[in-house]
């Protein structure tokens, strides 16, 4: 049975519909991310889950317990929802030491001192903070502060954890470390995690499921990270997850050519279905185009940039510029060199952005 259920959730701010009839179910122990551009409604949805905003229409259920419902005119305030929550700016209380921060929710719940000590110590141990329990937050690093926030939210054994861009304020190395720690905690405690982020790499690294959202919290795709990356449902998702080339094509002799570059050679002989004269747009990732010295679609290298382990090329095929990224150990092409492009994976999207299967 689904653990967290959002049914027809709608939220308006004045005339703006921030969340438009959102429907979602999350299974127990799953980690799902809301991924989307700033302002798409993902944070608003999370805050409605937490209870800091009330929904205008719809219901939220956890298990079989109604948390908030416009139909039944019911709203459970945040302090009664029993969720763990981690915020972007850590929200760790500076006037309490680490132990007191983590023990706070247990004290509120009126547990005995012995129980408080036991559970707090456990939470501190799992997050590696036991030695720092007497320190104050301002003496600790960003990563440590985020761990305090994590420990505080798991100390009372919640079943649902809400994370609002928790790693954005950390440096890249720390982000990687904390990603793993969150994953480990999830495996150990089996909570359901709902995670909001605008960083697609983070969403991919952490989630069992990614929910890609556009404005109005409209779901564009709800899939595993691998499927979202390899089979983006539409143009929006394709361009949001990773680098893209969107190329215009023309069809002739049963083959597909890059627009205005018939002389360069065909891209593929597998023509996607389309209305006459309106071929779909070709989308492909720079990392999935092979460059060869002879053969392939003929083009000229107009720019080459070393990015470290990747060389970034711009190859001009007729009037079209194609971006290609190759690993640095592969043979180099110089600016002005001719090369052939071999398109390893092709995605097709029609003019409304919907996916077309070839």
């Amino acid at each position, binding site marked *: 049975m689904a653990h967290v259920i959002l049914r027809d959730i709608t939220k308006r701010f004045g005339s703006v519909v921030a969340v438009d009839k959102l429907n979602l179910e999350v299974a127990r122990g799953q980690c799902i991310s809301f991924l989307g551009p700033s302002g798409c409604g993902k944070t608003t949805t999370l805050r409605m889950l937490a209870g800091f905003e009330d929904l205008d229409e719809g219901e939220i259920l956890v298990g079989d317990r109604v948390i908030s419902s416009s139909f039944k005119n019911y709203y459970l305030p945040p302090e009664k929802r029993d969720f763990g929550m981690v915020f972007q700016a850590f929200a760790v209380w500076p006037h309490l030491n680490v132990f007191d921060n983590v023990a706070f929710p247990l004290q509120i719940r009126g547990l005995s001192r012995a129980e408080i000590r036991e559970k707090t110590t456990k939470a501190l141990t799992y997050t590696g903070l036991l030695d720092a329990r007497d320190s104050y937050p301002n003496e600790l690093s960003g990563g440590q502060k985020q761990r305090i926030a994590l420990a505080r939210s798991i100390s009372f054994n919640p079943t649902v954890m809400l994370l609002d861009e928790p790693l954005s304020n950390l440096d890249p190395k720390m982000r990687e470390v904390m990603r793993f720690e969150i994953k480990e905690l999830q495996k150990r405690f089996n909570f359901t995690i709902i995670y909001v982020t605008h960083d697609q790499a983070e969403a*991919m690294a952490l989630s069992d499921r990614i929910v890609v959202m556009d404005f109005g919290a409209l779901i564009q795709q709800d899939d595993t990270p691998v499927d979202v990356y*390899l089979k983006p449902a539409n143009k929006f998702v394709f361009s949001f997850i990773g*680098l893209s080339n969107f190329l215009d094509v023309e069809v002739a002799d049963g083959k597909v050519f890059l627009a205005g570059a018939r002389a360069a050679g065909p891209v593929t002989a597998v023509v996607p279905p389309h209305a006459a004269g309106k071929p779909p747009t070709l989308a492909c990732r720079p990392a999935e185009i092979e460059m060869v010295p002879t053969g392939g679609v003929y083009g000229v290298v107009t720019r080459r940039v*070393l990015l*470290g382990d990747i060389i970034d090329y711009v190859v001009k095929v007729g009037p079209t510029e194609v971006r290609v990224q190759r*690993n640095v*150990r592969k043979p180099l092409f110089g600016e002005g060199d001719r090369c052939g492009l071999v398109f390893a994976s092709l995605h097709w999207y029609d003019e409304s952005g919907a996916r077309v299967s070839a």
Partner: protein
Amino acid sequence: MADVRLENLAATFGTHRVFDGFTLTIRDGECFSLLGPSGCGKSVVMRMIAGFEHPSAGEVFIGDQLVSSAAKKVHVPTESRNIGVVFQDYAVWPHKTVFENVVYPLQIQKAAAAEAKTRSMDAIAQVHLTGLEDRYPSQLSGGQQQRVALARALVSRPKIMLLDEPLTNLDANLREEMRFEIKDLQRRTGVTILYVTHDQEVALAISDRIGIMGKDGSLRQIGDPHAIYTDPDDGFVFNFLGVANFIPVERKNGGIHVEGSDLPLEVEISPAARERIAKGEVVAACRPFEIDLVRDGGATRGVVRRRVFLGPIVTYFITVGAVEIRAQQEAAEAFRDGRALEEGEACGLTFQALRWYDKAGIGKEAGA
């Protein structure tokens, strides 16, 4: 346009020695990046060339002119050096419009008003800010402010341009865009550029040559970006420029093993390297993409402890003996061809390139 020669420069603040014996020539018309971790002194080098700091020893030449020498008591003040400087915080004057900012150097030079206007508008056009000349910096974005700073630095046709981490405060997309603008500008004007940064991505992308500074202020290596990236002289440079695996090895049963592993390492190792391995002086080093992962066979074997899917690549953390090695595969191919590995799976590793570096030269971060 001029070259810059630094000879035996030393910088000491109070009792704190930042660097000494620093010698470098930046060629006329080249784009040179000085790369190094925070605190290594790279900004001090730039500020000495600019004239904001006096060297405690050594000499600075711009072109043929000696501009700074502690011993000879020479110090040509900044305003007489004919340089352009772009700062990390842009340093665009908030009380002047874009035009007023850019025309300032020409006003100081007492250029004729008409000429000053033409040249300033040209510079503004070169950085694609035409139409915004009457705006104030507070009405511009970070990227636009940075372009104002660029135009202002170029308008007086300086001999050299000094850029101090100019792109650090911009977001990733903007950084990419500005990278190309700087490179384009340099190509068009032929001005000599010294670019100072801790961000290797930009340095690798735009430079004709890069120089890497160590934390102690020493120049570790100078050369072509691609060559340095693929074949650095020492472990510090290797680690600084990208993700690195440092693999400690040991001699066991007459063969070379990854530390803690029972399997011998099936790679070609030169006799010289073998000797150093025997003395315990070196570690092996390679980049994650220089390792091929196979299900059977391989130069050595390990177990996948963790797999992280990030999009274009899948990263694996593989336990080999007592060492954790980071490897990767191109995701699309790997999933389609069924080569992707699961956590807990055993696998083989084949090394495309393995380098041997002194343990001593690497620095603590490598954990060698």
